[in-house]
């Protein structure tokens, strides 16, 4: 079996993976990182989204062997100890979480959004999150949380 070496949440890891594993299998079964969720398994729903070398990736579609030499960021890598990332904090304060299944993908995608558009317009937020489904349909609270995380005015939770 091939051995891949990569950095996951700033931690170097070395793990043996079957060739037919996807990146989410590496995270779940190889490393025990269960925060990333698998929804549709075919790239549509966005639940499994992680950052690979700073770019959004669907971990259900990416082959694990291709992660060799990359830097992967998952939901587990955002908080510093007990201090939440500002995006996570905004999601909590706005109650932008219902069942929570889409949340890791939403938060990671927001991370990429704010890296590209630090002060996003509503259109940019909606467009960026268009590939992340919330089947509880909690979209308006999610939008509020993203606006708040971006430091936009008038977005404090009620």
């Amino acid at each position: 079996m091939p051995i891949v070496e990569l950095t996951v949440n700033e931690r170097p890891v070395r793990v043996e993976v079957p060739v037919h594993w996807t990146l989410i299998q590496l995270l779940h079964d190889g490393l025990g990182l269960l925060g990333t969720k698998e929804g549709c398994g075919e790239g549509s729903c966005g639940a499994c989204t992680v950052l690979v070398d700073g770019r959004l990736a669907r971990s259900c579609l990416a082959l694990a062997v291709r992660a060799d030499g990359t830097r992967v960021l998952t939901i587990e890598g955002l908080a510093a100890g007990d201090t939440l990332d500002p995006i996570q904090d905004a999601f909590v304060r706005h109650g932008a979480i219902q069942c929570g299944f889409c949340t890791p993908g939403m938060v990671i995608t927001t991370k990429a959004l704010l890296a590209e558009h630090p002060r996003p317009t509503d259109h940019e937020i909606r467009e960026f999150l268009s590939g992340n489904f919330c089947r509880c349909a909690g979209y308006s609270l999610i939008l509020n949380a993203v606006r708040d995380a971006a430091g936009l005015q008038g977005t404090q939770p009620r």
Partner: protein
Amino acid sequence: MILRPFEYVECRTVGDAVAALERGGGDARIIAGGTALVPLMKHQVLRPSLLVSIANVPGLADIDAAGEGGVRVGSVATHWAVSHSALVREQSPLLARACQRVASPAVRSMGTLGGNLCYGESASDPSPALLALRATLRLHGPAGERTVPITEFFTGFYETALAEAEILTAVDVPATPAGAHWRYLKWTPRAQEDKALVGLAAMLVLDGRRCRLARLGLGGVAASPSVLARAEQALEGRELDDATIARAADVAAAEVEPIEDLQGSAEYRRDMLRVWVRRVVSGLAAEGSR
């Protein structure tokens, strides 16, 4: 959903990849971004025994200026890279825009332009743009390199002109004519990230209201992406008044053979094509005569 086992080879040159494909016979597949191939494998529509990766072939993701105002895009450049390239935005903005409309951001940053074209899907976003721009594709196979105009690449429902063990290596996009007005219209019946029911790439060169050049590429409606050749002829050389535009829209609706699926009936696709040709051309004509 999990994948069934397969062999995997990471190639460093196009020649190695061609040789690996030949060794694998009909049971080998090229993989780059995997956004089209991996779901098909999970659903066991395809069960290749060998995946040949060209994602890390040096130079194959490059985007370079080519000739006077042209651009050469390497086949494994991602949709994200194409739509964010300053060169593509400057010289082929229609292509940049179409790549910006592919699926969703994560899929755009994984999936490649070459993979999109070789999948041969009708509802591709870049295909209509490259058809309107009359791009040329560079293919490498066991017998060497050949070029195919994109107008001859799509041969049927998920079928292309790629021969056995052939690999798309680059897309040559000719210069956008000076002063051209363009638009990529993606009509999705429900949501932003859906596939195009009508994907219309239009480019017009105008002299006042007179149309000097019309280029219309279409995706989503028929079995494969195509040029609306008769509608182009119905516009070129004419004053673009409402009657002429409406007639060209009727010609467009008559020259395609729409498919039918869960997204919409053939009749609906034909109607929507007529509507969007009229609206898009009217909009560009108004923009040009301002």
